[in-house]
Protein backbone atom coordinates (compact mmCIF):
# COMPACT_ATOMS: atom_id res chain seq x y z
CA UNK A 1 0.00 0.00 0.00
CA UNK A 2 1.23 3.45 -0.77
CA UNK A 3 1.79 5.34 2.43
CA UNK A 4 -0.95 7.88 2.82
CA UNK A 5 -0.07 11.51 2.71
CA UNK A 6 0.55 12.87 6.14
CA UNK A 7 2.27 16.16 5.88
CA UNK A 8 5.84 15.75 7.03
CA UNK A 9 6.84 18.92 8.70
CA UNK A 10 9.65 20.75 6.96
CA UNK A 11 9.64 18.76 3.72
CA UNK A 12 8.44 20.37 0.51
CA UNK A 13 5.20 19.11 -0.98
CA UNK A 14 5.25 16.66 -3.89
CA UNK A 15 2.05 15.79 -5.74
CA UNK A 16 2.03 12.15 -6.80
CA UNK A 17 0.00 11.18 -9.85
CA UNK A 18 -0.49 7.49 -10.59
CA UNK A 19 -1.32 6.59 -14.17
CA UNK A 20 -1.92 3.23 -15.79
CA UNK A 21 -1.30 2.57 -19.49
CA UNK A 22 -1.50 6.27 -20.32
CA UNK A 23 -0.16 6.83 -23.83
CA UNK A 24 3.43 8.01 -23.65
CA UNK A 25 2.78 11.02 -25.89
CA UNK A 26 0.05 12.20 -23.53
CA UNK A 27 2.35 11.64 -20.55
CA UNK A 28 5.15 13.65 -22.15
CA UNK A 29 2.81 16.50 -23.04
CA UNK A 30 1.61 16.55 -19.44
CA UNK A 31 5.18 16.57 -18.11
CA UNK A 32 6.30 19.37 -20.38
CA UNK A 33 3.31 21.45 -19.36
CA UNK A 34 3.87 20.87 -15.66
CA UNK A 35 7.56 21.71 -15.96
CA UNK A 36 6.88 24.98 -17.76
CA UNK A 37 3.61 26.13 -16.27
CA UNK A 38 3.32 24.76 -12.76
CA UNK A 39 5.13 25.92 -9.65
CA UNK A 40 4.49 22.70 -7.71
CA UNK A 41 6.61 19.58 -7.41
CA UNK A 42 5.22 16.52 -9.21
CA UNK A 43 5.94 12.83 -9.27
CA UNK A 44 4.28 10.92 -12.09
CA UNK A 45 4.30 7.14 -12.18
CA UNK A 46 2.80 5.61 -15.33
CA UNK A 47 2.52 1.87 -15.13
CA UNK A 48 3.06 0.99 -18.78
CA UNK A 49 1.99 2.71 -21.96
CA UNK A 50 -0.85 1.51 -24.15
CA UNK A 51 0.95 0.64 -27.38
CA UNK A 52 4.61 0.33 -28.33
CA UNK A 53 6.32 3.55 -29.32
CA UNK A 54 9.79 4.85 -30.03
CA UNK A 55 10.83 7.94 -28.09
CA UNK A 56 13.86 9.95 -29.17
CA UNK A 57 15.59 12.79 -27.35
CA UNK A 58 15.47 16.38 -28.55
CA UNK A 59 18.42 16.03 -30.89
CA UNK A 60 17.64 12.56 -32.17
CA UNK A 61 17.92 11.93 -35.90
CA UNK A 62 15.81 9.03 -37.18
CA UNK A 63 18.28 8.18 -39.95
CA UNK A 64 21.03 7.65 -37.37
CA UNK A 65 19.04 5.98 -34.62
CA UNK A 66 16.28 3.93 -36.19
CA UNK A 67 15.79 1.06 -38.60
CA UNK A 68 13.29 3.24 -40.40
CA UNK A 69 12.20 0.60 -42.89
CA UNK A 70 11.05 -1.66 -40.06
CA UNK A 71 9.50 1.24 -38.19
CA UNK A 72 7.45 2.25 -41.23
CA UNK A 73 6.52 -1.31 -42.07
CA UNK A 74 5.21 -1.95 -38.54
CA UNK A 75 3.76 1.57 -38.22
CA UNK A 76 5.43 2.21 -34.89
CA UNK A 77 4.86 5.76 -33.65
CA UNK A 78 8.06 7.80 -33.29
CA UNK A 79 8.06 10.65 -30.80
CA UNK A 80 10.64 13.37 -30.31
CA UNK A 81 10.56 14.48 -26.68
CA UNK A 82 11.57 17.73 -25.02
CA UNK A 83 14.35 16.30 -22.88
CA UNK A 84 17.86 15.27 -23.87
CA UNK A 85 19.28 11.80 -24.00
CA UNK A 86 18.87 8.79 -26.22
CA UNK A 87 16.24 6.62 -27.84
CA UNK A 88 14.01 4.05 -26.18
CA UNK A 89 11.29 1.66 -27.25
CA UNK A 90 8.46 1.65 -24.73
CA UNK A 91 5.37 -0.52 -24.30
CA UNK A 92 3.16 -2.03 -21.62
CA UNK A 93 6.23 -3.51 -19.94
CA UNK A 94 7.78 -0.09 -19.31
CA UNK A 95 7.29 1.66 -15.99
CA UNK A 96 7.75 5.42 -16.16
CA UNK A 97 8.82 7.49 -13.16
CA UNK A 98 9.08 11.25 -13.45
CA UNK A 99 10.16 13.89 -10.96
CA UNK A 100 9.47 17.55 -11.62
CA UNK A 101 11.00 19.78 -8.97
CA UNK A 102 11.56 23.38 -8.01
CA UNK A 103 15.32 23.70 -7.72
CA UNK A 104 15.02 25.34 -4.31
CA UNK A 105 13.04 22.38 -2.96
CA UNK A 106 15.95 20.01 -3.45
CA UNK A 107 18.66 21.67 -1.38
CA UNK A 108 22.22 20.75 -2.16
CA UNK A 109 21.38 19.87 -5.76
CA UNK A 110 22.48 22.41 -8.34
CA UNK A 111 20.26 22.83 -11.41
CA UNK A 112 22.82 21.20 -13.66
CA UNK A 113 22.70 17.79 -15.33
CA UNK A 114 25.34 15.93 -13.36
CA UNK A 115 24.17 17.19 -9.98
CA UNK A 116 20.56 16.19 -10.65
CA UNK A 117 21.64 12.86 -12.07
CA UNK A 118 23.76 12.12 -8.98
CA UNK A 119 20.83 12.90 -6.71
CA UNK A 120 18.60 10.56 -8.68
CA UNK A 121 21.22 7.85 -8.29
CA UNK A 122 21.00 8.23 -4.51
CA UNK A 123 17.23 8.07 -4.61
CA UNK A 124 17.16 4.86 -6.61
CA UNK A 125 19.95 3.45 -4.50
CA UNK A 126 17.37 3.43 -1.72
CA UNK A 127 14.86 1.68 -3.98
CA UNK A 128 17.18 -1.13 -4.96
CA UNK A 129 19.10 -1.48 -1.73
CA UNK A 130 19.61 -5.13 -0.93
CA UNK A 131 17.95 -6.24 -4.15
CA UNK A 132 20.58 -6.07 -6.84
CA UNK A 133 23.94 -4.64 -7.80
CA UNK A 134 22.41 -1.29 -8.68
CA UNK A 135 24.47 1.68 -9.70
CA UNK A 136 24.29 4.83 -11.73
CA UNK A 137 26.90 4.11 -14.38
CA UNK A 138 27.79 6.73 -16.97
CA UNK A 139 24.32 8.22 -16.49
CA UNK A 140 22.47 4.91 -16.92
CA UNK A 141 20.74 2.84 -14.26
CA UNK A 142 22.30 -0.62 -14.31
CA UNK A 143 22.35 -3.90 -12.50
CA UNK A 144 25.96 -4.92 -12.85
CA UNK A 145 26.77 -3.90 -16.39
CA UNK A 146 23.28 -4.22 -17.81
CA UNK A 147 21.06 -1.21 -18.29
CA UNK A 148 17.47 -1.40 -17.11
CA UNK A 149 16.47 2.25 -17.06
CA UNK A 150 16.99 5.13 -19.47
CA UNK A 151 16.77 8.60 -18.04
CA UNK A 152 16.74 12.16 -19.30
CA UNK A 153 16.32 15.67 -18.01
CA UNK A 154 15.27 19.17 -18.84
CA UNK A 155 16.31 22.19 -16.82
CA UNK A 156 14.65 25.59 -16.81
CA UNK A 157 15.60 28.67 -14.83
CA UNK A 158 14.00 27.53 -11.58
CA UNK A 159 12.81 23.95 -12.17
CA UNK A 160 13.94 20.68 -13.56
CA UNK A 161 12.55 17.36 -14.63
CA UNK A 162 14.21 13.98 -14.36
CA UNK A 163 12.29 11.17 -16.01
CA UNK A 164 13.04 7.52 -16.47
CA UNK A 165 11.69 4.65 -18.51
CA UNK A 166 12.27 1.43 -16.59
CA UNK A 167 12.41 -1.85 -18.48
CA UNK A 168 10.35 -3.99 -16.21
CA UNK A 169 9.78 -6.16 -19.27
CA UNK A 170 10.25 -5.73 -22.99
CA UNK A 171 9.69 -7.56 -26.27
CA UNK A 172 13.01 -8.45 -27.87
CA UNK A 173 11.62 -7.90 -31.32
CA UNK A 174 11.00 -4.24 -30.50
CA UNK A 175 14.69 -3.64 -29.93
CA UNK A 176 15.25 -4.42 -33.58
CA UNK A 177 13.79 -1.00 -34.40
CA UNK A 178 16.86 0.66 -32.91
CA UNK A 179 20.25 0.97 -34.53
CA UNK A 180 23.39 0.72 -32.50
CA UNK A 181 23.86 4.37 -31.41
CA UNK A 182 27.02 6.17 -32.48
CA UNK A 183 27.26 7.80 -29.08
CA UNK A 184 27.26 5.14 -26.38
CA UNK A 185 28.68 4.80 -22.88
CA UNK A 186 32.04 3.09 -22.59
CA UNK A 187 30.70 0.29 -20.45
CA UNK A 188 28.44 -0.78 -23.29
CA UNK A 189 31.52 -2.15 -25.05
CA UNK A 190 29.71 -2.34 -28.39
CA UNK A 191 27.21 -4.89 -27.14
CA UNK A 192 23.99 -5.23 -29.06
CA UNK A 193 20.72 -4.23 -27.38
CA UNK A 194 19.79 -7.66 -26.04
CA UNK A 195 23.22 -8.12 -24.48
CA UNK A 196 23.27 -4.61 -23.06
CA UNK A 197 19.90 -4.33 -21.35
CA UNK A 198 18.06 -6.46 -18.80
CA UNK A 199 14.56 -6.87 -17.41
CA UNK A 200 13.68 -5.60 -13.95
CA UNK A 201 11.15 -8.38 -13.53
CA UNK A 202 14.07 -10.73 -12.90
CA UNK A 203 14.89 -8.76 -9.78
CA UNK A 204 11.72 -7.60 -8.06
CA UNK A 205 7.92 -7.52 -8.47
CA UNK A 206 6.46 -4.56 -10.28
CA UNK A 207 4.34 -3.44 -7.37
CA UNK A 208 7.32 -3.62 -5.02
CA UNK A 209 9.32 -1.36 -7.32
CA UNK A 210 6.56 1.24 -7.45
CA UNK A 211 6.04 1.11 -3.70
CA UNK A 212 9.73 1.40 -2.90
CA UNK A 213 10.08 4.29 -5.33
CA UNK A 214 7.27 6.13 -3.60
CA UNK A 215 8.90 5.48 -0.23
CA UNK A 216 12.22 6.81 -1.50
CA UNK A 217 10.55 9.98 -2.78
CA UNK A 218 8.97 10.40 0.66
CA UNK A 219 12.39 10.76 2.24
CA UNK A 220 12.80 14.05 0.36
CA UNK A 221 9.23 15.30 0.05
CA UNK A 222 5.88 15.29 1.75
CA UNK A 223 3.98 13.24 -0.82
CA UNK A 224 0.31 13.84 -1.56
CA UNK A 225 -1.64 11.54 -3.85
CA UNK A 226 -3.64 13.50 -6.40
CA UNK A 227 -5.62 12.53 -9.46
CA UNK A 228 -5.02 13.57 -13.04
CA UNK A 229 -7.55 16.37 -12.81
CA UNK A 230 -5.26 18.12 -10.32
CA UNK A 231 -2.71 18.64 -13.09
CA UNK A 232 -5.14 20.90 -14.92
CA UNK A 233 -5.58 23.34 -12.08
CA UNK A 234 -2.26 25.13 -11.79
CA UNK A 235 -1.58 25.66 -15.45
CA UNK A 236 -4.44 27.69 -16.78
CA UNK A 237 -3.89 28.94 -20.29
CA UNK A 238 -3.29 26.62 -23.18
CA UNK A 239 0.25 25.33 -23.48
CA UNK A 240 1.77 24.16 -26.75
CA UNK A 241 4.33 21.42 -26.09
CA UNK A 242 7.39 20.88 -28.23
CA UNK A 243 7.18 17.09 -27.82
CA UNK A 244 5.65 15.74 -31.00
CA UNK A 245 4.89 12.73 -33.11
CA UNK A 246 7.00 12.50 -36.24
CA UNK A 247 4.99 12.23 -39.42
CA UNK A 248 5.20 9.37 -41.87
CA UNK A 249 6.54 11.83 -44.41
CA UNK A 250 9.37 12.85 -42.10
CA UNK A 251 10.34 9.24 -41.57
CA UNK A 252 10.18 8.48 -45.27
CA UNK A 253 12.37 11.48 -46.00
CA UNK A 254 14.83 10.31 -43.37
CA UNK A 255 14.88 6.91 -45.00
CA UNK A 256 15.96 8.49 -48.23
CA UNK A 257 15.45 7.23 -51.78
CA UNK A 258 14.97 3.49 -52.03
CA UNK A 259 16.43 1.41 -54.90
CA UNK A 260 13.88 0.73 -57.59
CA UNK A 261 13.27 -2.94 -58.19
CA UNK A 262 13.14 -3.60 -61.91
CA UNK A 263 11.56 -6.78 -63.09
CA UNK A 264 13.30 -8.66 -65.86
CA UNK A 265 11.14 -10.51 -68.30
CA UNK A 266 12.38 -13.74 -69.70
Amino acid at each position, binding site marked *: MIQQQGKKVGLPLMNLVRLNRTPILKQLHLEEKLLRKSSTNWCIINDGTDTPAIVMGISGKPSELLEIGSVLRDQVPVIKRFTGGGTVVVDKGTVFVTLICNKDDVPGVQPYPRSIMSWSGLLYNQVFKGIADFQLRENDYVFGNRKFGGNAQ*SITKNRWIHHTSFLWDYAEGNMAFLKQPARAPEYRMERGHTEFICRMNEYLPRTDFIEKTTEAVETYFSVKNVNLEATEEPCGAEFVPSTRLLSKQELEEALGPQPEIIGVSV
Partner: protein
Amino acid sequence: MALRMWASSTANALRISCASKTPAFALSRCFSSVLDGLKYASSHEWVKHEGSVATVGITDHAQDHLGEVVFVELPETGASVKQGGGFGVVESVKATSDVNSPISGEVIEVNTKLTETPGLVNSSPYEEGWLIKVKPSSPSDLESLMDPQAYTKFCEEENAAH
Protein backbone atom coordinates in the same frame (compact mmCIF):
# COMPACT_ATOMS: atom_id res chain seq x y z
CA MET B 1 16.35 14.76 5.99
CA ALA B 2 17.43 15.82 2.54
CA LEU B 3 20.92 14.65 1.72
CA ARG B 4 23.69 17.05 0.91
CA MET B 5 24.85 16.37 -2.60
CA TRP B 6 28.22 16.55 -4.10
CA ALA B 7 28.08 19.39 -6.59
CA SER B 8 29.69 18.79 -9.93
CA SER B 9 31.61 22.02 -9.68
CA THR B 10 33.54 20.73 -6.71
CA ALA B 11 35.56 18.38 -8.86
CA ASN B 12 36.59 21.28 -11.04
CA ALA B 13 37.24 23.67 -8.21
CA LEU B 14 40.80 22.59 -7.90
CA ARG B 15 41.76 23.98 -11.27
CA ILE B 16 41.65 27.43 -12.73
CA SER B 17 40.39 27.34 -16.29
CA CYS B 18 42.25 29.55 -18.66
CA ALA B 19 40.41 32.36 -20.35
CA SER B 20 40.26 32.62 -24.09
CA LYS B 21 42.86 34.19 -26.32
CA THR B 22 41.37 37.64 -25.75
CA PRO B 23 43.86 39.67 -23.72
CA ALA B 24 41.27 41.41 -21.54
CA PHE B 25 40.43 38.61 -19.15
CA ALA B 26 40.24 38.20 -15.42
CA LEU B 27 40.82 34.99 -13.53
CA SER B 28 38.04 34.63 -11.09
CA ARG B 29 38.17 33.09 -7.70
CA CYS B 30 35.28 30.86 -8.68
CA PHE B 31 37.71 28.97 -10.91
CA SER B 32 35.90 29.70 -14.14
CA SER B 33 36.97 32.55 -16.35
CA VAL B 34 35.07 35.81 -16.34
CA LEU B 35 35.88 38.35 -19.01
CA ASP B 36 36.14 42.08 -18.57
CA GLY B 37 33.99 44.18 -20.82
CA LEU B 38 30.97 41.89 -20.63
CA LYS B 39 27.85 41.99 -18.54
CA TYR B 40 26.40 38.92 -16.88
CA ALA B 41 23.01 37.51 -15.97
CA SER B 42 22.27 35.47 -12.85
CA SER B 43 21.31 32.60 -15.14
CA HIS B 44 24.91 32.53 -16.40
CA GLU B 45 24.65 34.16 -19.79
CA TRP B 46 26.90 36.99 -20.93
CA VAL B 47 26.29 39.91 -23.27
CA LYS B 48 28.79 42.04 -25.16
CA HIS B 49 27.33 45.31 -26.31
CA GLU B 50 29.05 46.91 -29.28
CA GLY B 51 27.17 49.80 -30.82
CA SER B 52 23.85 48.60 -32.13
CA VAL B 53 24.65 44.90 -31.78
CA ALA B 54 24.78 42.77 -28.66
CA THR B 55 26.33 39.31 -28.72
CA VAL B 56 25.04 36.71 -26.26
CA GLY B 57 26.47 33.44 -25.01
CA ILE B 58 26.79 31.31 -21.90
CA THR B 59 29.61 31.75 -19.44
CA ASP B 60 32.57 29.52 -18.73
CA HIS B 61 30.97 28.69 -15.37
CA ALA B 62 27.84 27.52 -17.16
CA GLN B 63 29.58 25.41 -19.78
CA ASP B 64 31.73 23.81 -17.13
CA HIS B 65 28.69 22.81 -15.07
CA LEU B 66 26.71 21.66 -18.08
CA GLY B 67 29.31 19.24 -19.39
CA GLU B 68 29.94 18.38 -23.00
CA VAL B 69 27.42 20.18 -25.19
CA VAL B 70 26.18 17.91 -27.97
CA PHE B 71 23.33 19.95 -29.41
CA VAL B 72 22.25 23.58 -29.54
CA GLU B 73 18.81 24.82 -30.54
CA LEU B 74 18.62 28.51 -31.44
CA PRO B 75 15.83 30.80 -32.63
CA GLU B 76 15.32 32.02 -36.15
CA THR B 77 16.66 35.43 -37.12
CA GLY B 78 13.95 38.01 -36.74
CA ALA B 79 12.64 36.41 -33.55
CA SER B 80 12.10 38.59 -30.51
CA VAL B 81 13.86 37.92 -27.25
CA LYS B 82 12.89 39.28 -23.88
CA GLN B 83 15.20 39.95 -20.97
CA GLY B 84 15.18 36.88 -18.74
CA GLY B 85 13.17 34.86 -21.23
CA GLY B 86 14.34 31.63 -22.84
CA PHE B 87 15.48 31.71 -26.44
CA GLY B 88 17.02 28.31 -26.95
CA VAL B 89 18.39 25.18 -25.36
CA VAL B 90 21.67 23.36 -25.10
CA GLU B 91 21.83 19.61 -24.63
CA SER B 92 24.48 17.99 -22.46
CA VAL B 93 24.62 14.83 -20.35
CA LYS B 94 21.13 13.75 -21.40
CA ALA B 95 19.65 17.09 -20.37
CA THR B 96 18.25 20.08 -22.20
CA SER B 97 19.01 23.34 -20.42
CA ASP B 98 17.24 26.58 -21.22
CA VAL B 99 19.33 29.51 -22.32
CA ASN B 100 17.90 32.89 -21.37
CA SER B 101 18.50 36.26 -22.96
CA PRO B 102 20.15 38.92 -20.79
CA ILE B 103 18.52 41.65 -22.90
CA SER B 104 15.43 42.31 -24.96
CA GLY B 105 15.55 42.84 -28.70
CA GLU B 106 15.47 41.24 -32.11
CA VAL B 107 17.68 38.34 -33.13
CA ILE B 108 19.74 39.45 -36.12
CA GLU B 109 22.15 36.55 -36.36
CA VAL B 110 22.59 33.07 -34.90
CA ASN B 111 25.80 31.09 -34.70
CA THR B 112 25.26 28.47 -37.38
CA LYS B 113 28.64 26.87 -36.64
CA LEU B 114 27.06 25.35 -33.54
CA THR B 115 24.96 23.00 -35.65
CA GLU B 116 28.01 21.02 -36.71
CA THR B 117 30.29 21.93 -33.80
CA PRO B 118 28.23 22.38 -30.62
CA GLY B 119 31.39 21.81 -28.56
CA LEU B 120 32.48 25.36 -29.36
CA VAL B 121 30.23 26.34 -26.46
CA ASN B 122 32.58 24.42 -24.18
CA SER B 123 35.93 25.22 -25.78
CA SER B 124 35.29 28.89 -26.52
CA PRO B 125 32.27 30.13 -24.56
CA TYR B 126 33.13 33.82 -24.96
CA GLU B 127 34.28 33.79 -28.57
CA GLU B 128 33.56 31.11 -31.13
CA GLY B 129 30.83 29.62 -28.95
CA TRP B 130 28.60 32.73 -29.00
CA LEU B 131 24.92 31.93 -29.49
CA ILE B 132 22.99 34.87 -30.90
CA LYS B 133 23.42 38.49 -31.89
CA VAL B 134 20.66 40.86 -30.90
CA LYS B 135 19.58 44.35 -31.88
CA PRO B 136 18.78 45.67 -28.40
CA SER B 137 15.42 47.29 -27.88
CA SER B 138 16.02 48.60 -24.38
CA PRO B 139 19.47 49.99 -23.57
CA SER B 140 18.59 50.14 -19.89
CA ASP B 141 18.54 46.32 -19.78
CA LEU B 142 22.30 46.38 -19.30
CA GLU B 143 22.00 48.30 -16.06
CA SER B 144 20.32 45.39 -14.32
CA LEU B 145 23.10 42.95 -15.26
CA MET B 146 26.22 42.18 -13.25
CA ASP B 147 29.68 43.48 -14.02
CA PRO B 148 32.56 40.96 -13.99
CA GLN B 149 33.38 41.49 -10.32
CA ALA B 150 29.79 41.08 -9.20
CA TYR B 151 29.36 37.98 -11.36
CA THR B 152 32.53 36.46 -9.96
CA LYS B 153 31.21 36.95 -6.45
CA PHE B 154 27.85 35.54 -7.51
CA CYS B 155 29.53 32.36 -8.79
CA GLU B 156 31.51 31.99 -5.57
CA GLU B 157 28.39 32.31 -3.46
CA GLU B 158 26.53 29.84 -5.63
CA ASN B 159 29.33 27.30 -5.40
CA ALA B 160 29.63 27.80 -1.65
CA ALA B 161 25.93 27.14 -1.19
CA HIS B 162 26.25 23.59 -2.56
